[in-house]
């Protein structure tokens, strides 16, 4: 009897497992629409409820969920979609469409990068959620892998995070495959180098005029990674002994490439090396924790140099609290700040703050511009066809065309949004995509530094401050 | 005092002890003799809790101890001086003794025991500060016994105290064991050197292939022809 009961239980369990497995498999793969993402109005911020999935123009955002860069890309897209939907959506051939945004976690900001996660994220967007456009990307090596998924499926993808030149070089060298790839935010590495040099050249000129030639030596400290390589080569050339400007006798006296895993003790060594090398200006090219360490030691040691360069972490508005104010006097480069770079910059800034409660990161403004750029092309062409219609339309957003008829093109927030038709890269240099140099000043304020009429026309920007030199530096330079 | 009832122990599938029963009276000196690999050390390890018996019962002062961990058993008053001495070689002689007295909380008792031990082994007193690893073999054995005594045990388990020692030193060690017995400490001695063991022990147990084959006093066992032949070499 007992045996029979046990047997029945066994049959029930095995049957249960079998039926459960079968049902699970059926639901996962075979049921109508299984695995398909059903788009609804909850994916379209600001759109009226009850719209059908066909009415949605689907945007997929790749990025690292929970990390500042990935969240930035998402927040920018979300805001752009919300604004467009609230304004009534897009009319294509008398049908109203709304913008749907969705995101997948590519885990690319993880120091222990697992490339397959980025691939999986892109595949889920493309095959599962059937997105029509892609926006995002941050880590070059991850994006290099998963951009192929979008290219395979002929989906327009706009990169808003990775600065490496190689992406847009692909478009030039293999147009048939990579014509769907664009970059809307970080200015590419080469142009960044150019802008740093331009700014520094003017800054040194002006400072030398005030302090009678005190500024002679330059040092650079940078992460020994591929993205810094081109920048460093440029700086080494311009400030090296065979540079084009020996008249200003700027010398590169310290050149410190470091391993990104450095500790504060290592950074202390480097700061002391920079001091020993008698640097007057130090150019950091840093994306990770090195910037915080540099500024901590800078505040403690009060060395006789000014920090001017790229420090990605210090672009965050929270950097002041993160460093306990140690970042004071740092001049660093950033793409966007609350200033009228273009007429839409300040409204965007305010809308973003209202929506998310913090300042936008560069990936946010880039993805905002990217989405608006695509929507503009859709509106203009009344089509959703990626190639040739949309691509060719977007390729008309060139420098010359925009300067001739600015009103015909979408208004970007990070500078006039012009693109090189051959590389699909952002055109850099005033008034197009250009970088701002900001200084952290007392009481957690970050102001834009004057560029001395070289990089951008100061008088047209609001929020321009004056350069404040650290007191110890003034003492040193005047005596 | 100690009562072992039908203990079985296996290493994996290999049998080490089979149905061992043993009774040790208070203030007695018992010896277990037998050839190499007969299970003598395993028996002591089972008593002191280093191995848990697979079956059977061990009672000490009327209390079951076979499920207890080694450190608990030590605190109950059984001190095991293990095979190959197992000293703390990096520590000084004095520190080794201090570790031996780990369960002793009373400072007076500790001092008394220290004096007692130093009296027993004057050599150790001379080498108090020396590292245990640098002592000679005989001195190390003395230290091992001394360390086992430090916790003022009710029952002392001695495993092969004569192993690897010169005959002269062996003799000295056994003199001490006798002295300890006279002081009133119950002792269970495991020894390969049957001649020496039978000289001092009251009851002798012969352990072969995990079983107790014979037991009795020296006089009784001396009559057995097998003992004579194999263990005493007469």
């Amino acid at each position, binding site marked *: 009897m007992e045996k029979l009961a046990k*047997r029945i239980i066994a049959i029930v369990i*095995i049957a249960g497992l079998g039926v459960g497995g079968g049902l699970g498999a059926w639901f996962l793969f075979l049921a109508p629409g299984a*695995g398909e993402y059903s788009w609804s109005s909850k994916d379209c911020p600001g759109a009226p409820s009850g719209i059908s999935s066909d009415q949605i123009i689907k945007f997929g955002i790749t990025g690292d969920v*929970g990390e500042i860069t990935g969240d930035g890309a998402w927040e920018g897209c979300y805001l752009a979609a919300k604004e467009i939907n609230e304004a009534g959506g897009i009319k294509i051939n008398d049908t109203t469409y709304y913008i749907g945004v969705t995101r997948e976690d590519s885990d690319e900001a993880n120091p*222990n990068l697992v490339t397959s996660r980025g*691939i999986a994220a892109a*595949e*889920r967007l493309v095959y599962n959620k059937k997105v029509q456009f892609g926006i995002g990307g941050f880590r070059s090596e991850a994006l290099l892998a998963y951009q192929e998924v979008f290219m395979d499926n002929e989906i327009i993808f706009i990169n808003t995070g990775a600065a490496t030149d190689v992406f847009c070089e692909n478009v030039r060298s293999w147009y048939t495959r990579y014509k769907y790839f664009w970059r809307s935010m970080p200015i590419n590495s080469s142009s960044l180098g150019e802008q740093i040099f331009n700014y520094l050249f003017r800054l040194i000129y002006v400072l030398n005029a005030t302090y009678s030639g005190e500024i002679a030596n330059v040092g650079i400290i940078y992460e020994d*990674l591929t993205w810094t390589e081109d920048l460093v080569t440029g700086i080494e050339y311009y400030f090296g002994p065979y540079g084009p400007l020996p008249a200003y006798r700027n010398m590169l006296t310290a050149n410190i490439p470091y*391993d990104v895993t450095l500790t504060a003790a290592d950074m202390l060594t480097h700061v002391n090396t920079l001091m020993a090398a008698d640097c007057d200006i130090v150019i950091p090219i840093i994306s990770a924790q090195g910037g915080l360490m540099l500024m901590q030691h800078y505040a403690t040691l009060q060395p006789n140099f000014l920090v001017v360069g790229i420090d990605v972490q210090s672009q965050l508005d929270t950097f002041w609290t993160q460093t306990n104010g140690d970042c004071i006097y740092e001049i660093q480069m950033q793409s966007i700040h609350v200033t009228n770079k273009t007429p839409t910059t300040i409204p965007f800034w305010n809308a973003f703050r209202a929506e998310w409660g913090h300042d936008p990161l560069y990936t946010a403004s880039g993805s905002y511009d990217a989405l608006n750029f695509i929507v503009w092309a859709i509106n203009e062409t009344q089509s959703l066809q990626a190639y040739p219609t949309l691509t060719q339309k977007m390729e008309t957003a060139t420098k010359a065309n925009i300067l001739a008829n600015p009103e015909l093109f979408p208004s970007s927030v990070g500078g006039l949004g012009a693109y090189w038709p051959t590389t699909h890269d952002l055109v850099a240099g005033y008034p197009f995509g250009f970088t701002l140099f900001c200084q952290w000043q007392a009481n957690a304020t970050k102001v834009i530094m004057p560029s001395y009429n070289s990089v951008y026309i100061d008088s047209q920007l609001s929020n321009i401050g004056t350069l404040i030199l650290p007191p110890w530096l003034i003492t040193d330079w005047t005596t | 005092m100690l009562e072992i009832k039908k203990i079985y122990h296996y290493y994996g599938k290999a049998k080490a002890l089979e149905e061992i029963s043993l009774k040790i009276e208070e203030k007695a000196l018992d010896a277990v003799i037998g050839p190499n690999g007969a299970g003598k050390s395993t028996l002591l390890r089972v008593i002191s809790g280093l191995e848990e018996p697979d079956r059977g019962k061990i009672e000490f002062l009327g209390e079951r101890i076979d499920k207890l961990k080694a450190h608990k058993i030590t605190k109950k008053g059984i001190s095991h001086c293990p095979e190959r001495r197992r000293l703390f070689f990096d520590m000084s002689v004095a520190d080794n003794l201090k570790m031996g007295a780990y369960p002793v909380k009373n400072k007076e008792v500790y001092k008394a025991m220290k004096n007692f031990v130093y009296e027993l082994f004057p050599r150790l007193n001379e080498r108090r500060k020396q590292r245990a690893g640098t002592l000679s073999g005989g001195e190390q054995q003395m230290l091992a016994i001394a360390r086992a005594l430090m916790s003022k045990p009710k029952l002392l388990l001695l495993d092969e105290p004569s192993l690897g020692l010169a005959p002269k030193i062996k003799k000295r060690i056994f003199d001490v064991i006798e002295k300890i017995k006279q002081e009133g400490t119950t002792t269970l001695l495991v020894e390969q050197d049957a001649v020496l063991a039978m000289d001092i022990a009251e009851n002798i147990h012969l352990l072969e292939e995990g079983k107790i084959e014979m037991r009795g006093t020296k006089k009784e066992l001396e009559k057995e022809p097998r003992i004579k032949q194999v263990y005493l070499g007469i």
Partner: protein
Amino acid sequence: MLNLKIVKEKMNEFPSYLKSWVKTFTGSLTIFCLLILFVMPFLSANQSFTHVFLRQFSLAMIFAIFAASWDLLTGISGQISFGHAIFFGISGYICAYLIKYQSFPIWISIIISTVVAVFFGLAIGFPLLRLKGPYLALGTLAMSLILLKLFLMGSLADWLFGSEGISALPGLAATPVIEYFILFIFMILTFVILIQISKSKFGTILKSIRDDEVGSDASGINTTKYKIYAFMLSSFFAGLAGGFYALYIGAVNPTGNFGTVLSFFAILMASLGGLATISGAALGAFFFIFLEYALIEIGVVEIGNLAIDFGLYKFAIFAVILIVIIRFAEHGILKPLLERLKDLWDLLLGR
């Protein structure tokens, strides 16, 4: 050395061996699982199924090969490696380099890169195998970190392609289904070979080295030689997996192919399944990949006012599951799982 007669005999014996194996519980269960895997691609033509779900299964198969190769080295022969990504990464890089810059066909590149991985196994195994236990683990970990840091360095980018690595590689096959079957075949081959090796005399020698190295040495086994064989064999399959992974991703880069996290993937998958079982590696790999997939799929779950984002917390959940499994099933889930299933099956048959 190769006795053809014996081989022939073995070949003749094989069908009957297979027959009796299939009749055993594990045999029939294995065949059942393989059948499910085989029919999987035909279940649905849905894009989200073939391009997302099947691809995850392909990934699990690559990792199964990788984890099994680790299990051979650590589980069977007891040589703990924490740097298995060395072989995985070097093979991936060689494969990518040959395809991208030397225009080699895919299959020739995979063969060459696997051979190179074996040479790496030899070159690294030879000096490191003098070490034992945790020291060997640290040695291999250090080796993999050295390679990782060298490949990352911007100043060496001209030779080692820098932090961005090599990208835009062709896929392993034209469609995910073909890719799935290629990997399926290779996974079965790998597991058949590795399980046979672990059961053979060679495997027994490796196990004896694992259990008692001094004893094996004393009984006349040249332990160093066998340990190096194990290293080379293991690096062969790790290299194979590395080559496939490079083509699966379509790109290689230092962190993604040499990262310590990959070595730990192999360790986790193999020990989740069960050390020294080989087939546990497959179970672990599928469990691991499927769990991640499921957590992302579940996404945000709202319980009352509380919204739990499983996608966001997936790694924390992962860590907890890992800790719990290792804590309560030290020897992996394969064996207890099989036992439970067998008990159930026996009950059903009334045994």
